[in-house]
């Protein structure tokens, strides 16, 4: 197993390199630059500004400069937020997204796994239909509808929580629910589907016939295989959750990383785009690695290649 993990770490390097290169050139393809503004700047000033950030150098030189700094761990200055470096911005925003993501993930797992497993055990019963319908509802209702709806009911209507912000403990509730509810629905459906696959296989029938208690059947035999699709889904889903959701952070005014993914693109903040992309890439790769390891553990027939 350790050889497998080590191999994947080695593979990470060329992958990140390709991502960095592709993104570097992708952002510069889009029309408009970081200093394209509504009130136009005198051309000399524009030239000096671009010179300061190295934007007047030939493209391959900028690329080499950037990669060189990248190796040192320096993601460069933000082009939009002049006083902050990309490292500083990510460093201050990520913990917030991580916290929100953990709460959301907890809600998603508890609600999702609970509903999905129970529904699969009582296939085609009322419980199954109701919980799967609720899950479908959770998938259908977009976060930008759920969020404001919750704010209107609990924030403005009942006055139990603030409408937005990230100060007190209470401020965490609505954004976590909005974020988690969405993923809970997916997890519920995938869990049910996966469990059904397993529960109807022969070896489960054998276990039941042998007189194993239902709980033992579930826990020992079915869960491992049944949760396989959930685990595959969770890899990228966890990466998405903890790097923040643009919609949730905008609606609830959460100072997280999710917003930067979108605003950096709109601001043509080249360094910020690259920084967030690379950060996300590292997370995704690590999480996929974890998912692959867990998959082998869950299905003993698989082996590390």
């Amino acid at each position, binding site marked *: 197993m350790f050889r497998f993990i080590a191999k994947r770490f080695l593979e990470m390097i060329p992958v990140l390199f390709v991502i960095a290169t592709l993104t570097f050139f992708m952002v510069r393809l889009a029309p408009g630059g970081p200093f394209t503004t509504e009130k136009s700047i005198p051309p000399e*000033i524009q030239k000096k500004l671009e010179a300061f950030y190295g934007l007047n150098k030939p493209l391959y030189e900028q690329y080499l400069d950037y990669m060189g700094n990248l190796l040192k761990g320096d993601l460069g200055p933000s082009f939009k937020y*002049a006083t902050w470096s990309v490292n500083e911005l990510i460093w201050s*925003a990520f913990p917030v997204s991580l916290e929100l993501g953990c709460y959301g993930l907890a809600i998603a797992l508890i609600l999702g796994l609970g509903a999905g497993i129970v529904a699969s055990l009582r296939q085609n019963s009322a419980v199954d239909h109701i919980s799967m319908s609720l899950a479908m509802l959770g998938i259908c209702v977009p976060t930008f509808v759920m969020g404001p709806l919750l704010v209107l009911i609990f924030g403005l209507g009942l006055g139990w929580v603030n409408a937005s912000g990230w100060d007190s403990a209470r401020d965490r509730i609505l954004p976590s629910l909005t974020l988690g509810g969405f993923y809970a629905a997916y997890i519920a459906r995938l869990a049910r589907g996966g469990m059904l696959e397993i529960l109807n296989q022969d070896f489960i029938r054998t276990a039941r016939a042998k007189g194993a208690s239902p709980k033992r059947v579930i826990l020992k035999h079915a869960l491992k295989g049944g949760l396989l699709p959930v685990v595959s889904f969770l890899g990228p889903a966890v990466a998405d959750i903890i790097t923040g959701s643009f919609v949730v952070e905008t609606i609830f005014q959460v100072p997280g990383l999710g917003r930067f993914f979108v605003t950096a693109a709109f601001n043509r903040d080249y360094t910020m785009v690259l920084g967030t992309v690379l950060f996300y890439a590292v997370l995704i790769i690590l999480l996929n690695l974890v998912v692959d390891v867990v998959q082998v553990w869950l299905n003993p027939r698989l082996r590390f290649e």
Partner: protein
Amino acid sequence: MACGCGLFLFLALSLAGCGRRETRVEIGDREQILYKSNGSEPQELDPDIVTGVSEYHILMSLFEGLVSEDPHDLHPVPGVAERWDVSPDGTVYTFHLRNNAKWSNGDPVVARDFWESYKRMLAPTLASEYSYMHYVVKNAQAYNEGKITDFDQVGYKVLDDHTFQVTLENSTPYFLSLLLHHSWFPVHLPTIRKYGDPYLRGSKWTRVGRFVGNGAFVLAKWRVNDVIVVKKSPTYWDRDRVRLNEIYFLPIESDETEEHAFRAGQVHVTETLPLSKIDFYKKNYPDLLHIEPYLGTYFYRINVTKPPLNDKRIRRALALTIDRESLVADVLRGGQLPAFCLTPPGTAGYTCRTQLHEDIAEAKRLLAEAGYPGGKGLPPIELLYNTLEAHRIIAESIQQMWNKSLGIEVHLVNQEWKVYLDSQRTLNYQVCRASWIGDYVDPNSFLDMWLTGGGNNETGWSNSQYDQLIAEAARTTDPQQRLEVFQKAEAILLDELPIIPIYFYTHVCAQRPEVKGWYPTILDNHPYKYVYLEPNKN
């Protein structure tokens, strides 16, 4: 499943049991803390580098210029300078600084601080985007462009510790109102030097703990995308008049989120109000709704280099078929005024006499004269706007108007912000939406854009007579005569119509009644030292 439900119920009940809490605004009222929603997160807090309105609102609390503004009508009042003399020909201003003005670290504010600040502002290496505000000063432009390298040749002189003299290129009647802009705020060079090269960007002197300003407030907290807090300054010369203890600036980008926060009692004043909520407030909270005139015009630019719109008759036909009253009353509903000329009326005493009007018959005639009777034969016109609901709605309405009245087919093109700016800059459009907010209260701010080759022209329009008139206005000393020159210039503009004015902006926002000392001003400037919170006792 049962666990999930139980958990949720538990959460819900525990919240319910908590009862009604004191809202943030109520706490603020008690402790004289103002919560202001401020739009986007500031790029920087360095007055020489920033360009945006949200930054300006914060900097106004942290710095004070030579001249300050009256809270009612923004006319210049003493700031750091307690009085000033103007030479008879209007080109030399001598400012006498007060003795007790201090920086937040205790250093006295002296004339040399201003000299150093403007040297930094105009340094070519700093590449400040607002340095052109200083171009009215003798040789400032030449220095900024690197044509001269000796700053002593620029029209700034330190006569002594408390006397600062400015020499202008020409007499500029609006010079004092220029000084209200953040590009004229002084900065503390010794602090900047401590953290880097003062003539290059990237010095991190604006962090909390390092920041030094001379305004009524000092920087206390800065969490990106979360909040900026400023506290009353113990060293400000007029601190006895300052009643607020703290101001919280909240960078809430989304209009909807901001409005929810306002209703939930989290902010005292919002930056704006979503279009869809204006009627709601008019009906339910009319005393919280504030609609105030704002120095800005919304207009359409026309690319005059591309046929068929190089024919001014067609441009005029387009301009005459827009039902501006209906747009303003039915579509925008924010109290805006229809614009029949470019410069907002009453700008520094100037109201343009040339006015467009709605005249569909005349428009049809012009179109026919240009060779396209009933719109036949005219290729579809592309109308470009950047992605925002308000622009979309207006564009759709105007598309309908042009189609119904003139039989012209209009294609709407919507581009993302930067792509749209780029298209405008490179003249890669036919008709596009634009707006201009005046930097200072003077018709020149709206009219000098259209000079041949001007950076903000972006229409390809060039008229030498217009250029001459604007240059003449800059030289004219008599204020009335000067306004007459502008009348002539704007008449040309409205005859050739490289632009079609649509409406004059208003500033729409929600504001709680306990905010006092906050008056409607045309630049939406509200000097914070006069603001205080006085809740009704009922």
